[in-house]
């Protein structure tokens, strides 16, 4: 297991190098360059600009520029945002907590919903309730998340006034107070529900099928023969066995949340890294764009890796080699 993990981790390195080359090439192919962010915008003297170009290394051959960028990147120097005129790392660090909060909340919602629905379906398979749950899940899986988000804002924010329709916190509340955290929670709830409720299908169906399969096993028969109440068999004996494999979905969710975050954050104008990414594309903020693309690619890679490793830990029958 350890050997496999180490080998996979080492395997990530060439992948990351390749991705970094692709990201660098793409950034260079995009119109304009990031020079404008580094110089004094009021000084239009061509000599000054030429001097700064030279000083900042924009005249070097591309491989040298790539090498400069990647060594800086590895040391945590992501460059300076051309839009905000502050180090990219600072901007990303400012936005990441919001995205993490949204991600964790939506995962929590997915888990709770899927858990309840899966438990019910597994206990009473092929009944009306089970079919209804399967139907609902299927429809939620098919509806594109942005369409669901638009409808959610329309009904819950505008018509019922239950949730605010944008931002991550009320601007009037003071930071650090209890109200502040409630306001944050209030703002994150609707996007998290939309993001989380959409992906319950795979969890629910998996839990359902696993519970049905386990309920036919010998240990359940033994427990019943000994007179254990049915409720206890389902809630303790079977659930313990069925819940572990669910962990493996976590890694895939990780990667899926990234794509989801870009869309959901934009629709809900929620200030996270997804929204920052889109803004950096439209405002041609290349240092931010490159750093975010690398970060998101890395997270996707890490998510896939975690999924594979959890697979092996949870089910020892799967041989990883």
């Amino acid at each position, binding site marked *: 297991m350890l050997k496999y993990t180490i080998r996979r981790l080492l395997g990530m390195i060439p992948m990351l190098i390749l991705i970094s080359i692709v990201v660098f090439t793409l950034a260079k192919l*995009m119109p304009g360059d990031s020079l404008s962010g580094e110089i004094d915008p009021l000084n239009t003297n061509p000599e000054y600009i030429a001097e700064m170009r030279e000083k900042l290394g924009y005249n070097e051959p591309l491989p040298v520029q790539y090498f400069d960028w990647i060594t800086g990147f590895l040391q945590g120097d992501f460059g300076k945002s051309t839009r905000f005129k502050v180090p990219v790392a600072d901007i990303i660090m400012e936005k990441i907590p919001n995205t993490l909060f949204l991600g964790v909340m939506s995962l929590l919602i997915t888990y709770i919903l899927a858990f309840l629905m899966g438990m019910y379906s597994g206990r009473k398979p092929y009944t009306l309730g089970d079919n209804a749950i399967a139907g609902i899940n299927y429809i939620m899986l098919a509806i594109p998340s942005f369409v669901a988000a638009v409808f959610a804002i329309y009904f819950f924010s505008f018509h019922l006034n239950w949730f605010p329709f944008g931002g991550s916190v009320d601007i009037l509340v003071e930071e650090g107070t209890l109200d502040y955290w409630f306001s944050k929670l209030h703002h994150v709830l609707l996007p998290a529900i939309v993001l989380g409720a959409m992906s319950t299908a795979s969890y629910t169906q998996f839990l359902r099928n696993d519970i049905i399969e386990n309920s036919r096993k010998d240990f359940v028969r033994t427990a019943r023969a000994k007179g254990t109440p049915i409720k206890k068999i389902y809630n303790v004996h079977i659930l313990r066995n069925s819940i572990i494999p669910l962990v493996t979905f976590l890694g895939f969710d990780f990667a899926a949340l990234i794509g989801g975050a870009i869309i959901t954050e934009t629709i809900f104008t929620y200030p996270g890294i997804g929204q920052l990414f*889109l803004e950096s594309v439209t405002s041609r903020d290349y240092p931010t764009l490159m750093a975010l693309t690398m970060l998101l690619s890395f997270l996707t890679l890490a998510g896939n890796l975690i999924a594979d490793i959890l697979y092996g830990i949870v089910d020892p029958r799967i041989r990883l080699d």
Partner: protein
Amino acid sequence: MASTTTIAQQKKPERSLSPWQIARKKFLRNKLAMISSVFIILVTIMSLSAPFVANFLSPLPDVTKVNIGSMNIQPNGEHLLGTDKSGRDVLTRLFYGGRISLLVGFSATLIVISLGTLVGSIAGFFGGLVDNILMRFTDFVLNFPFLVFVIVLNTILYGIVDGLWVLILVIGVLSWGGVARLVRSKVLAEKENEYILAALSIGCSPWKVIRKHLLPNVMSTIIVQATLIFASMIVAEAALSYLGFGVPQATPSWGNMLSSANEPDVLQGKPWIWMPPALLITLTILSINFIGEGLKDALNPKSLR
């Protein structure tokens, strides 16, 4: 002697159904899939007929022209679904939008399926080093965060190639990884059969074996996969257009129409502008998914229905 011939005539040996005929029968009996098929056919007819019926749909058949005199009209007898903020008829745009959405979905699916099948079948059939190289490349493509790279690539290629085809190419080229893996695994299982050995032993070239023997046998998987990818490509187009990185704004597509919901004023007060495309996208995606499930059922020889 005479009696035996009559028996033979009476009991004409009935030809048993071919696998495709069985599949068709099963599919026709699946109510949900049939309703969905009818819906998709209707949407297709609607989209294809857009330029011919535009004159009958509303007094403003031109979907790209801004009409200052008729902005934000609520649905009425003249404009059945009202007009948008540039004074363009929503119903007419819905018809034209279907053309773009379906075209993007269909072309991108074609690219994804062709690339995926090509890479997957070559990797699976030849195995060894070829397999290794191709699959590492597939991993590489699969590890890109899809939306992130589509948006970046789209921005670069915008203006170099015509907007619509940029989108088709980019989403097509970035999403074939899953199909390649699937086809490869199917080919790996299928090529162990004796008929492949037989075909090779009588001197068929590898290409002929792949084309004539392997692919027909993995076709059912590819068809089901193509349906599901068709749905996800329509979603991708709509999502990207909604974010403003898809089809150029001037061209009506369902995603572009929906993007007007970005303005709180439209979202809150003028639901007739964004609700029709939103509902149409959802229904189309649902129908395609139902058709996919129906096909999966019909093409699976083990399913009894």
